[in-house]
């Protein structure tokens, strides 16, 4: 008597009109009976279920572990302070293996088996892009914490949102003026020869040009490379700054070989911390990075001017002043990115409250409520700082930190403005049907 979606189909039952009327009367009686009231309350007070697509295994496991810790801390606080719309929040975790194919299956599992209200938490862009079609087809909101430009580019769908972390295009655009003004005018880029590196390759040169500097060489390193010395002669002698983005364990070899190549007379270094997330910056082999500068989303090390909200966030997540776990000093966090989980969960909370979210039937309203948001004030819910949200491209914008590595710790020397990273939107998801 039900179709595949579980809907009752009277036409397939052979039930007579008289029987149907009797049923309606009985149902009406039931609706006003005390027993049904209890049932309704039980339904409305059932936990909101968030499906967390987690990189527990695979190349993203280090990030996944800290994303999970941050998520648990945020959810505990949300539940301790009354939950969402008076309901507790339950997180259901599935490992996607940092694999695009499995990621899509996991989205299906959340929507159809776990019956979660939304899916959240993905970092690696291939998993996000691989999972996006499934989220769109299943019409389940998919809140990612990925920092890739893929959401803002408009190539996904209306159910994919990134309201808690800025994208690489914005990050690169933000830091370019500081590099031009403080590090040097002639920049050589060293980046991985795959998509993450291409966002840097494509967006840094125009941003530097606007700031009065230029990229004089771009050196793409194949992802399978394990030794880098042969690439260093390609770095022009007049280079003022080497801009490096090397994701993965090869970064240790890269830094060591770079130090051996240049000695004490090399260009200045500016890097993205992504390579060193979950890695102690005082590890043997990284000495050559001393004195260099890094982009950080949120600072790994506690800063002298940390807000109370930032201090509370760090305590809740369980990281000490050096960004390592309070229970294990060797367990270094992915602090530059994982704040995005915290902030995304609070955006979800607000969007559910704004839309009066009750269940999966309100998913479209949830998307619209998120799209309607414009600003998030700095505070306990957004400890990294104030944000501006563009509902058309489903992307948040915020400030970035530029930190100097000296004395064995990273100290923030410059904070960009939100406007530094904003760009002209290239898409409008709100024109797509929900």
């Amino acid at each position: 008597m039900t179709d595949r979606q579980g809907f009752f189909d009277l036409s397939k039952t052979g039930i007579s009109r008289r029987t149907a009327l009797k049923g309606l009367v009985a149902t009406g009686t039931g609706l006003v009976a005390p027993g049904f009231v209890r049932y309704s309350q039980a339904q409305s007070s059932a936990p909101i279920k968030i499906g967390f697509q987690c990189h527990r295994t695979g190349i993203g496991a280090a990030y996944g572990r800290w994303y999970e810790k941050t998520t648990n801390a945020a959810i505990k606080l949300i539940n301790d302070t009354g939950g969402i719309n008076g309901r507790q929040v339950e997180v259901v975790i599935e490992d996607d293996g940092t694999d695009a194919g499995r990621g899509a299956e996991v989205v299906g599992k959340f929507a159809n088996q776990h019956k979660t209200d939304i899916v959240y938490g993905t970092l690696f862009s291939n998993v996000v892009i691989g999972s996006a079609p499934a989220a769109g087809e299943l019409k389940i909101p998919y809140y990612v914490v990925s920092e890739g430009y893929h959401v803002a580019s408009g190539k996904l769908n209306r159910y994919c949102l990134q309201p808690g972390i800025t994208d690489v295009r914005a990050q690169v655009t933000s830091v370019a003026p500081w590099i031009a003004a403080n590090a040097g005018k002639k920049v050589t880029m060293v980046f991985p020869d795959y998509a993450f590196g291409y966002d840097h390759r494509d967006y840094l040169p125009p941003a530097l040009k606007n700031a009065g500097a230029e990229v004089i060489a771009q050196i793409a390193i194949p992802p399978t490379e394990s030794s880098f010395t042969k690439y260093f002669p390609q770095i022009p002698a007049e280079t003022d700054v080497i801009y490096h983005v090397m994701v993965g364990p090869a970064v240790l070899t890269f830094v060591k070989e770079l130090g051996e190549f240049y000695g004490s007379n090399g260009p200045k270094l500016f890097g993205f911390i992504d390579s060193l997330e979950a890695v102690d910056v005082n590890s043997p082999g990284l000495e050559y990075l001393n004195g260099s500068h890094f982009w950080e989303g949120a600072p790994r090390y506690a800063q002298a001017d940390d807000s109370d909200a930032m201090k509370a966030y760090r305590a809740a997540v369980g990281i000490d002043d050096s960004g390592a776990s309070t229970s294990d000093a060797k367990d270094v966090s992915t602090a530059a990115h994982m704040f995005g989980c915290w902030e995304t969960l609070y955006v979800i909370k607000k969007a559910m409250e704004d839309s009066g979210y009750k269940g999966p039937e309100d998913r479209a309203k949830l998307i619209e409520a998120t799209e309607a948001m414009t600003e998030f004030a700095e505070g306990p819910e957004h400890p990294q700082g104030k944000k501006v949200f563009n509902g058309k491209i489903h992307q948040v914008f915020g400030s970035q930190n530029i930190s100097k590595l000296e004395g064995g710790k990273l100290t923030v020397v410059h904070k960009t403005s939100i406007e530094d990273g904003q760009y002209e939107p290239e898409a409008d998801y709100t024109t797509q049907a929900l």
Partner: protein
Amino acid sequence: MTEGSSPARAYVLHLAVIAILVVLNFILPAYHHGLLARILVLATFAMGYNLLFGYVGLLSLGHAIFFAAGLYGAGLGVHHFELSVPVAFMAALACGAVLSLVIGLLALRTSGVAFMIVTMMFAQVLALAILYFAPLTGGDQGLVLQQQERVVHLGDTVLDLTNPMTRYMVALALFSIVLLLTLGVVRSRFGRVLIAIRENEERTRMLGYDTFANKLAAVVVSGVICAAAGSAYALLFGYVGANFASVQYSILPLLWVLLGGAATTLGPLIGTLFMYYVVDITSGYTSAYLLIVGIALILLVLFFPKGILGTIRQRWVRWLP
């Protein structure tokens, strides 16, 4: 072919399996329904692999290249050239056929370990080419095929491949065609020659058969089947990614076939189904699920050395094709 084989029983069994899969379309819960659609496509990939590995005895470590040829052949056609779904599917088959013919002509000059290495190298070339031509292929991030691009117009009939029921039935149709085709091939004269090559290539050649031509034909048929699976994956699930061209996707069909039973027509389905559900269930309990998968594989090798169906055939049901 096994002693006492019976064509009628074999066809009845295969049709019964297809019938069960049709019934499952209407009774499975939504999640398993979606998962089984994916498994049917990947089992088709495994059947293509099985044709070469199980029946000819050629162990390729580069079959991801054919799956990826289909995946990108269809995906790029739809994404960049706005091809219709049927045309993109045919283009993918053509990509698979041409690629398998070229690779077969070169790789079949080797045998044994050298064949494994050469096929793996070809697959690596394609995988790296996908990364190199990132502006076209989307690189390691891949491409999304939008929902409106995955609709088939057949006269007045519109098939929306994003609809779960349609998707399942299309995946099942592809699987069924390839299953019956495989059964037909392995029972044909051509199939018997392939098995003869596997058992003793020198003797087969001495009997007057052109073993190179037969092996090449097997590579092409296998490559086209794998390309069909890759193409279906792109069109049905909307994602075209470089991970499907990686070594992992050359090893997986080998694993699925070994598990289900090499040189059994239904073995690839059993192996794919088993592996998928072991991973799906165990990953819900522990992040060390690959350890459990490994233990399960060891137990299978110990108690089902010829794979699940291969051992069943050897011990109990000798007519299984």
